[in-house]
C-alpha cells in the first residue's frame, strides 16, 4: 500500500465533557431565568384577568348578609389587601411570591401553598399515571402501526387513535363512570380512597406512593383502584395523540438510510425497530409527551370535577368560579412552573437520548 494511504492522525472530536457541563449549567440558568420571567408574565396575566371580572371577591366569598355589613367587607378587604390600589396589590403579590408566599385562599381560608401542597400531589399522581399509561400504550401501538404501515393493523390503529383524540373527555368520563362503577360495579366511583380508609402518612402526598412506603397494602389497593377510571379517561386523548405521533416519527425514521443499513447488517427486526428506529423516534415523542402532559392538565379540570378528585384541576375550576384571586394566581404560577419544568425535562431527556445534543 502506498505511503500516502497511511493517514495522519486526525483529531477525533473529543468528548468535551468539561465544556459541556459548563454549557449545561449555563443552559439551565438561562432556561430558569426565562422561566421566572414567564412566571411573572403569567401572574400578571391572571391578575389582569381576574380584575376584568365584574364581580367582587368580597361578594363572592362573604355570605349574603355579611356582604351588606360594611365592617365585614372592610375586614375582608383588609385581610386580602384588596383595599390597596391595583398596582400596589400586584407589587405586594410579587414581593411575597419571591419569598415563596402565595397568599391565602379566600375560599379555603388556608394559605394557597397549603392548598397546593394538598392538591398538586393528587393531580400529579393522576397525571403521572395517565402519562405513563399513555406512553406505554400509545408508543407501543404507534410502533405497531408504523411496522405494519398501511396494512390492516395500521388502519385499525389509525381509527383508534383518531377516536382517542376525538372523545369529549367529559363525556367519556361520565360514560365510564356510569358503566364501570354504576352498572358493573367493577371500580369505585370518585374520590381517592374508600371512605373507610384514612390516607397514608404523608410523604409525597401521592396516596399510592405513600401507602407503599408505609406498607399499607389495603390503602394502596384502594388508591390504585380509585386511580384506574380517571386515569384511563385522562389517557384516552394522550394515547391517541402519542400513537399517531409515534407512528409518524417512526415512519420518518424508517425512511432513513441508517435503518436500511441496520437491516442490511442482518440484525433481527426487533433490534432494528427498537434500537435503530424507536430510539431516535423517542426524541420527538418526548416533545409530544411534554405537550401531552400539558393537555393532561387541561383534562384534569374536567375529569377531577367528575370523579371528585381533589386536585389542581378542581381547585382551578372552583377558584375561577369563586374569583379566588390568590388561588387563581397560585394555580397559574404552578402550572407555568410545571410547563417550564416539563420543557426543561424534555430538553434534558433529549441530551440523554441524543448524543448530538449532549456533545455540542
Amino acid at each position: 500500500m502506498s505511503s500516502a494511504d497511511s493517514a495522519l492522525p486526525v483529531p477525533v472530536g473529543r468528548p468535551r465533557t468539561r465544556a459541556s457541563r459548563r454549557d449545561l449549567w449555563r443552559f439551565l440558568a438561562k432556561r430558569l431565568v426565562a422561566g421566572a420571567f414567564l412566571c411573572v408574565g403569567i401572574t400578571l396575566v391572571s391578575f389582569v384577568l381576574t380584575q376584568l371580572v365584574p364581580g367582587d371577591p368580597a361578594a363572592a366569598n362573604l355570605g349574603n348578609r355579611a356582604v351588606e355589613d360594611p365592617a365585614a367587607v372592610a375586614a375582608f378587604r383588609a385581610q386580602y389587601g384588596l383595599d390597596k390600589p391595583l398596582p400596589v396589590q400586584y407589587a405586594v403579590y410579587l414581593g411575597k411570591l419571591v419569598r415563596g408566599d402565595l397568599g391565602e385562599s379566600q375560599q379555603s381560608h388556608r394559605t394557597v401553598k397549603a392548598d397546593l401542597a394538598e392538591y398538586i400531589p393528587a393531580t400529579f399522581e393522576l397525571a403521572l399515571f395517565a402519562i405513563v399509561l399513555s406512553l406505554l400504550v400509545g408508543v407501543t401501538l404507534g410502533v405497531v402501526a408504523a411496522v405494519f404501515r398501511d396494512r390492516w393493523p395500521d388502519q385499525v390503529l389509525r381509527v383508534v387513535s383518531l377516536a382517542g383524540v376525538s372523545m369529549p373527555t367529559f363525556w367519556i368520563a361520565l360514560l365510564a363512570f356510569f358503566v364501570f362503577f354504576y352498572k358493573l360495579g367493577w371500580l369505585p366511583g370518585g374520590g381517592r380512597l374508600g371512605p373507610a380508609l384514612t390516607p397514608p402518612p404523608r410523604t409525597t402526598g401521592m396516596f399510592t406512593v405513600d401507602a407503599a412506603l408505609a406498607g399499607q397494602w389495603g390503602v394502596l389497593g384502594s388508591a390504585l383502584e380509585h386511580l384506574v377510571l380517571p386515569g384511563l379517561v385522562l389517557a384516552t386523548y394522550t394515547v391517541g395523540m402519542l400513537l399517531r405521533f409515534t407512528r409518524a416519527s417512526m415512519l420518518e425514521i424508517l425512511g432513513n438510510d441508517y435503518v436500511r443499513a441496520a437491516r442490511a447488517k442482518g440484525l433481527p427486526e426487533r433490534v432494528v425497530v427498537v434500537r435503530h428506529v424507536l430510539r431516535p423516534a423517542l426524541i420527538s415523542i418526548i416533545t409530544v409527551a411534554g405537550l401531552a402532559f400539558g393537555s393532561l392538565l387541561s383534562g384534569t379540570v374536567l375529569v377531577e370535577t367528575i370523579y371528585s378528585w381533589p386536585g389542581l384541576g378542581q381547585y382551578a375550576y372552583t377558584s375561577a368560579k369563586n374569583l379566588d384571586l390568590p388561588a387563581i394566581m397560585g394555580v397559574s404560577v404552578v402550572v407555568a412552573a410545571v410547563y417550564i419544568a416539563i420543557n426543561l425535562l424534555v430538553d434534558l431527556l433529549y441530551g440523554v437520548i441524543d448524543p448530538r445534543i449532549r456533545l455540542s
Partner: protein
Amino acid sequence: GGGSSAGTPASGTGSAAAPANQTLVVDTTFNLKTVDPGRMFETTGLLIDRALYSTLLTFTGGDVKKPVPDLAESYTASPDGTTYTFKLRSDAVFSDGTPVTSADVVFSLNRVKAIAGNPSFLMAGITVTAPDASTVVLTSEKPNPSIPFIVPNPALGILNSTAVKASGGTDAEGADKNDKAETALNTASQGSGPYTLSSFSTTTQVVLEANAKYWGTKPAYSKVVLRNVAANVQKLNVTKGESQIALDLSPTQAEGMKDVQVVNGASPNVFFLFTNNDPKISATTANKDFQEAVRYGIDYDGLVALAGTGSTQAAGVIPTMFLGSLPAGSGVKRDVARAKAALARSGISNPTVDIGYPSDFASNGIAFGDLAARVQANLKEVGITVNLKGSSVQTALAEYRDGKEQMGLWFWGPDYPDPGDYLVFLPDQLVGKRAGYVKGANPALEALGEKAATTVDDAERVKLYEQIQTELNTSSPFMPLLQPAQIVVAGQSVKNVQSNAVWLATLSELG
C-alpha cells in the same frame, strides 16, 4: 303555620339498631370554607358545626318553629323583647372534659361579633353578659324577638374559650385582624357537641368522631365521613350503598329511587321574581300595572312542576316551616286575562324587559336558567317580551346587589328560621332596595314591618307577618314563586332521617 318540615321516611326503616362502631358516610356537595364557628356560614359548615358545637338553644328533627334547650336548660325573655336570659345546664363539658361556663358563652358570641366575618351579623346589636357562671344574658338594642331562633345557629356554637385563646383566639376589639384560631379550629374542634373533628379538608372530606366526653345522648354512629361529591354521583353512591346519606339530590334525581329512604322535606329557600320598582332602571318594570301583569302572568303551578315533586308554590316570602308563613294554597294564581288587562291598563305596548339571574347556579337541583326560560315563556303569553340576561353568579350578584336589574330571578335562604329574617323584602330594606323598593314606596307596609320587628308574642307575630305577606303579594314588586323540595336520601339502615331547614340534617340524631 304551614307544612311540616319533618319528612317521613319513604319506606320502612331497618329494624336493627346501628352498631356503635359504625361509620356513617354522608355525601354532599361541599360548600365549605371553614369550621371555625366564628367565621363559618356555609351550608356544609352549618351541618358540621351543628355536630361539633353545642349552642344555647337548638332545634330537633325538622322542627324549626320551636327552639329547644341545648346548653341552656331554659331561657326567659323580657316582655319588651330586648333581654333574653339563659340558664346554663351544669353537666355540660367540652371535649377535653372542662365544664362549659358562661364565660365560654360570652367569649364565643363576642368573638363572632368581633371577627366581623360572615356570621357576625347574627350578633348585630346584641351584647352578651354573664351575671354568674351559669347565666348568660343577651341584650338587644332594639326589641329582637328573633333571638331564640338565632342562637341555635351553629355559628353561635360555644367554644372552649381557654383552648381557643391558647391557640390565638380572641374576642376583643380587633379580632378581625388578631384572631388566629381558625387554623387550630380547622384541625381540632373545641366544642361540647356530640362529635369532634378528626380530619378536615374543604374539598375532599371531613371526618368526625364521636365525642367520648359528650354530656348528652351519645350519637349512634361513632364516625361520620362527609365526602364532597357532586349530586349526580351522590345518587349512584347511595344507591350502591357506598354512602348512607345523600343530601343534594334534586327531586328529579330522587324520583323513582328504589331501596332507599327518600325524605322529602321542604327547603326554606324561597325563589322569587322581582320587577324593579325604580323608574330610573326601567319605567316599564316600575309600572304598577305591569307588575300586576307579571304577577298574574306567571304559571306558578308550572314552575312547581318544573321544580319537581315535593316543591310547593311559595304563598308568601316566608317559607312554610317558619312561623308566620301563609297557608298553602293561598298564593297568587295565574290569571292570564287579568294579566293582559293589567298590561293594557299600563299603556305600555310591546313591553320588553331584561331579566337577570345566575345562569351557572342551581339550588336544590333547579337551574335558574330553566326557571328563567319558563318565566320568559309564561310572560310571552301575556305579551311581555323577556330577554334572558343570565350571567355568572358573581356578576349577576353584583348587579342584583347594586339594584341594577330590570327583572331579577333569585332566592332568599334564611339566615335563621324566624320570620324576622324576611322583613328584608320591605321597602328600604336589604332586598327591597335591590328591587328599587325604597322608603316611602308603601308607608303602611313599612309601619307594619316596624311593628312586626318588635313584637314578641307569637300569635301577634303570626298575624302581622301574614298581613305583611298579603300586602307584598298585592302591591310589591316581588312575586314569590316557589319553595323547592329539600331531599335527604338515606340508605335503609339509617334511622330517624329528617331534613332540617337550617343545617340540612342533624347528624347526631341519626340512628
